[in-house]
């Protein structure tokens, strides 16, 4: 991907900048030049106003991807989801900091800022939104599960070569 092609979308990919039809108040992400649902959509030309999504959302559907998209190979398997935002738009994105057993339709998530991919070893690094489990007091869920005593014991046992998980 060329530098300019990614760069021009950074307000959207970094900060969820969408827009809203001033006639019918429907919110769009990514922003659109014309409102497709508004009855008077020809009149909405030039009347779309900037609108930034809050970053909140809930899982509408999800999958565990084993055969990665280009640039995502190191993260396999990763959770990809459709996220329903309270503002309306549905977004496609990864859910990070989660194990598959924890994901379910309806679970609350919040936008996170992560690396999307790199243009090879020497190229530009692309950043943007992903999602992670939401928490009650705003922000994102704590490091999902505490290190359990069992897990530490397993790690110790592995270290001594006495057990295999």
């Amino acid at each position, binding site marked *: 991907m060329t530098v300019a092609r990614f760069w021009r979308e950074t307000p959207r990919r970094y*900060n969820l900048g969408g827009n809203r039809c001033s006639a019918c108040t429907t919110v769009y992400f990514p922003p659109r030049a014309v409102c497709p649902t508004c009855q008077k959509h020809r009149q909405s030309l030039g009347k779309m106003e900037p609108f930034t999504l809050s970053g909140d959302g809930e899982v509408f559907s999800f999958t565990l991807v084993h055969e990665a998209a280009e640039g995502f190979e190191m993260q396999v398997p990763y959770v990809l989801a459709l996220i329903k935002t309270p503002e309306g738009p549905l977004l496609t994105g990864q859910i990070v*900091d989660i194990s598959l057993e924890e994901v379910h339709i309806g679970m609350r998530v919040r936008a996170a800022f992560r*690396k999307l991919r790199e243009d090879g070893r020497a190229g530009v690094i692309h*950043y943007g939104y992903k999602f992670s489990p939401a928490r009650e007091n705003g922000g994102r869920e704590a*490091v*999902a*599960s505490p290190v359990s005593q069992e897990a530490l014991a397993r790690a110790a046992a*592995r*270290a001594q070569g006495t057990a295999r998980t």
Partner: protein
Amino acid sequence: MMEQTVGIVSYGAYVPRYRITPQEIGQVWGTDGAAMGKGLNVVRKSVPSPDEDTITISTEALRIALTRGRINPHDIGAIYVGSESHPYAVKPTATVVAQAVGATPYLTAADFEFACKAGTAAIQTCMGMVASRMITYGVAIGADTSQGAPGDALEYSASAGGAALVIGRENLIAEINATESFTTDTPDFWRREGQRYPSHGGRFTGEPAYFRHVGECGRRMMELAQTEPKDYQHVVFHQPNGKFPQRIGKSLGFSEAQMKYGLVTPWIGNTYSGAALIGLANVLDHAKGGDRVLVVGYGSGAGSDAFDVTVTDRIESYDRNHGRQVQEFLDGGVPLSYAMYAKYRGKIHLGGS
């Protein structure tokens, strides 16, 4: 003492989710990892996901800080990110962070590098700019995704994490009464341009480097502030492992209780430029109005920056419960095998690349 009152308006910390233990590392290299961990006082260290780096860690920490402090990003006049693991050799971390928190375009931004004390250097820069009224808010970030060469002693501690401080003149949750530095040319740890992993002087990193600089700087800070160790409720040292700060703390006359919240490395590892700032963030998570805090950072090469800080009553109404507190990072984490760690840290070379 500062003529113009400056201090911390808000703060946030971020540590990636994964953890690896010294035992797990040791079994790969035929070393007694448990003994190594005990010697370093490191129980586990954090490991970033493959999609995390200093830019994403800095952004997450700053986003928490801006929300907690209800700060309009456009009021930020400067963002300085201190790190020794900036994702680009040339191209600033700070511009991505500035864009990602919505602070662009009317601000200045730059990356700092001074081994592990680039973050505290950024605090000092922001203090000066805020005090001189060049800017309303300055953001100082210390963050790293540090790497030790496979099998090297550093591998047992080098981890990832960071914290962001918003420095300003008003609405302070902590006043910075004074700052002092101690700087010499001492080559204890370095990384040459183009090298993948840092090199170090082994035991030379101890007495002539860390202990001398932190000790001298801490002592001088207290002299200037006319304080004694007993005047502080909390003390935070740079913490390349869990042992060094305990030793220097003891020799300066601080108790375990004073060091309790400032010491985070045993549970997350050495976050380099993030270490002292995350320790300070943990202190602020627990502090009461009126608490006095001594912070002494250290960066190889070498130098120390010290800060004499007084927490204000405003901390009680400040929204420090928004987002994650440091304790959650210390308690939590998902254990990784060395194999997954090696993959996540890019230590495995893929075919063709």
